């Protein structure tokens, strides 16, 4: 019985990580209807960047993320402005294929630079620290921090979206690109800002990815799929829905793993397909499409 309770707790907390993966994807789709196939690889890239900064400057990963945040924002802004804005239009193919190409470039660039070896972010005793809940159950501090960070990111994104001028511009652009321009919104800049913001979220996701487990250049696509599944399970257009989607996915994986360790990933995918069959618009649909 404790095993099962433990699986549920771990699953919920794992959901926090998936919500962090998903928040960036959801943000990009919410503002510019971009489905970014390189999303997972960007998370892995950010993890390597944090690793490099942390080792080169001798910083703790948590500090390294803070250092990296403005850089990430600028990178995202530039990526959107220089490359991805060119792909947006009525046709689905260019953004999909350009980001797919990007995914391959990032994976192999990382392989070339960092080799295929597994890496891990090191942050001292906090990595293994845990809080006992009694009855032989304990929650790790890092998983707990992951969940709290996911919640903080969602609160912050909701604040930006619903309480600030730039958030209004995000929503207006996503509603009606043409009329938004009539309001003086330069959609190319707005898209670039959104991507910059998504990159900051990616950086936070990367921190916890690297603290919780080993990573190597090839694990990006799987993270993309988890992020995507969390977004769809939660229902498009709501950040809180994304958290719920992440939790459902995390639960499915840990419970699957509890039955048979080899079933962990499969169980997550099957939960996603099941939701798709039963509620194709997700658990908490919001957007009109």
């Amino acid at each position, binding site marked *: 019985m404790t095993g099962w309770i433990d699986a549920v707790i771990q699953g919920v907390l794992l959901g926090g990580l998936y919500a962090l993966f998903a928040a960036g994807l959801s943000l990009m789709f919410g503002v510019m209807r971009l489905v970014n196939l390189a999303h997972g690889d960007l998370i892995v890239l950010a993890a390597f960047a944090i690793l490099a900064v942390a080792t080169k400057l001798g910083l703790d990963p948590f500090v390294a993320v803070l250092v990296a945040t403005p850089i990430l924002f600028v990178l995202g802004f530039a990526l959107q402005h220089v490359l991805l804005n060119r792909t947006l239009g009525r046709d689905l193919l260019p953004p999909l294929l350009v980001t797919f190409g990007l995914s391959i470039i990032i994976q192999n660039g990382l392989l070339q630079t960092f080799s295929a070896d597994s890496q891990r972010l090191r942050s001292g005793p906090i990595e293994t620290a845990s809080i006992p809940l009694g009855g032989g159950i304990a929650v790790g501090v890092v998983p707990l921090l992951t969940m709290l960070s996911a919640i903080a990111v969602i609160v912050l994104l909701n604040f930006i979206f619903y309480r600030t001028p730039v958030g*209004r511009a995000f*929503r207006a652009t996503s*509603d009606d690109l043409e009329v938004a321009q009539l*309001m003086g919104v*330069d959609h190319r800049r707005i898209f670039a800002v959104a991507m910059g913001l998504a990159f900051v979220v990616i950086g936070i996701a990367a921190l916890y990815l690297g603290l919780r487990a080993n990573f190597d250049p090839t694990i990006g696509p799987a993270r993309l799929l988890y992020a995507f599944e969390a977004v769809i399970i939660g229902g498009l257009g709501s950040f809180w829905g994304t958290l719920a989607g992440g939790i459902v996915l995390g639960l499915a994986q840990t419970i699957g793993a509890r039955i048979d360790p080899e079933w962990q990933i499969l169980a997550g995918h099957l939960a996603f397909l099941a939701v798709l069959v039963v509620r194709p618009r997700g658990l908490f649909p919001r957007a009109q499409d």
Partner: protein
Amino acid sequence: MALLETHNLTAFYGDFQALYGIDTTLEKGETIAIIGANGAGKSTFLKSIAGLIHGSADSVLLDGNPIGARPAAEIVKLGIALVPEGRRLFPSLTVEENLLIGGYGRKTSGPWTLDRVQALFPILKERRSSATPTLSGGQQQMVAIGRALMSNPCILLCDEISLGLAPIVIADIYAALPRIKAEGTSVVLVEQDVVQAMKVADRVYCFQEGRLSLTGRPRDLTRDQIHRAYFGT
């Protein structure tokens, strides 16, 4: 020099030519009306001025400066605001947010603020947190006009603001026009309702299949002239 001039303005949708060499002028403080049958090119004309469709740079002149090639987001900052056909409010923004986003690109201060727009259309204050799809057609039109005013335009382009509204509601909307003009704003009205257009416009332009078919002051034009310019018989 006129405030706004179009010079030999042409417009294309792909291979299809929607406007052929349109010459118009708009003086400061003036109201002109564009009339014409469905598909005559009236909306296309407004979109060309607002920067949603681009022709050659010097086909549109604002204070003598060519603006025909500027993107829409810059045009609004130069003081030209469009109330688009069909209102096109942002469904995921509340009434107040729709008004606020209208002031997004505003550089200079001017007569219009959120308070003044809400004073012009008091219902917009009452319903400021509502989602726009829940408003009546007339209320939605008020949001669309208020949203355009929030950028403090010197030229307001209105595309069929009476479309689909009951006569009494139309009267309400048009009642706001004098108060807008009182701020020195020039207005370009696109109207299918010729009688309404004649009442408020200083001058009228009639379009027919992308060409200018008639120009003049309302009191100088006969019914028959307008009928012919409108339907081309």
